[in-house]
């Protein structure tokens, strides 16, 4: 049988009794203060404070500051320029540029689910035979989202969902040209 909200009520006198202030002995509070005075001064925990500070590129949950967007694009470009160095792949030939644009947060029903973002990825690589975005959680090449080639422009594009905190994407580019 399901619980009802009114199951969460106490008899009124008991709720009042629980909230009522209790006579505290001032000497007890003083003993605590006296004990503390004998203890060494607590030290700041810099590590945890630094870890809790939001990165400068972040504005609020689910959003990137303009600088954050530029950082995302820059890292993406760097990954492309470095290449993957795996058999069958090579530094990207004819790289005309890459972009990654945050389209919006993912929405489920009426509630905004800003843990994932939709990102549009575009890569100009007319000579490539296959382009994919590596899995953002593991970076594994074998778990990836393939981009589609525009036959007219030679640009590869696709929309991927990435975790809110991800600021870099790795692309796997395959080309018939060997290193």
């Amino acid at each position, binding site marked *: 049988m399901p619980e009802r909200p009114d*199951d969460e009520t106490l*008899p009124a006198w008991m709720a009042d009794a*629980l909230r009522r*202030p209790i006579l505290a002995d001032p000497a007890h*509070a003083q003993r605590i203060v006296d004990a503390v005075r004998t203890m060494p001064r607590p030290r*700041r925990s810099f590590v945890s404070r630094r870890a809790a500070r939001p990165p400068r590129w972040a504005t609020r949950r689910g959003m990137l500051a303009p600088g954050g967007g530029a950082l995302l694009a820059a890292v993406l470009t760097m990954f492309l320029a470095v290449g993957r160095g795996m058999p069958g792949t090579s530094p990207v030939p004819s790289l005309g540029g890459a972009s990654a644009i945050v389209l919006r947060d993912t929405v489920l029903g009426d509630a905004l689910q800003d843990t994932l973002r939709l990102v549009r990825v575009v890569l100009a690589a007319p000579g490539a035979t296959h382009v994919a975005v590596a899995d953002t959680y593991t970076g594994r090449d074998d778990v990836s989202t393939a981009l589609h080639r525009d036959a007219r422009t030679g640009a590869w594009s696709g929309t991927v969902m990435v975790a809110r905190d991800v600021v870099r994407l790795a692309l796997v580019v395959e080309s018939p040209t060997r290193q």
Partner: protein
Amino acid sequence: VSASDPTDSTLVLRVLDGDGDAFGVLVARHHARCLRLAIHVLGSREDAEDAVQETFLRAYRSLGTYEDRDRFGGWLARILVNQCRTALTRRARSAETVADWEWAAAPDGVTEHPADQAALREELQRALAALDPAQREAVVLKFADDMTYDEISAVTGASVSALKMRVQRACRRLRALLGESAHA
């Protein structure tokens, strides 16, 4: 606490900067509340005072890890709940407690016979003692401290759904034990 008084976070920073008196202000601000929660959870003034003292000493030692985004009262309550759990574990399961504490004053000038107050204290204590420790902890945090379920969850580590279930079962048990009409 008036608007001109320093916030808890400000006082914490002062303590970390070497102002020894600032922690005394924090103790004065939170001592009565902590004692009330501990007394209702433990049922004994002596045990409660020990738990509260250890709570403040641990809080002082760990003050460097306190984050501004936390509410100091909630952070303190988390330490207090752990101390109360430790005290309950140490205490013999069968140990009975007597209501060796008193309320500060009758609310809003109501005159109250000492015998009536003593009877009320005994009845409250007996009722809370009838609950298992996890239920009692949830009931005290919800009703004595007006915490939301999310806040209780942060303090106790239990999920919101588990806490709701505990409170509902505790309330049903208490109503059955006490009878709604007895003090209506």
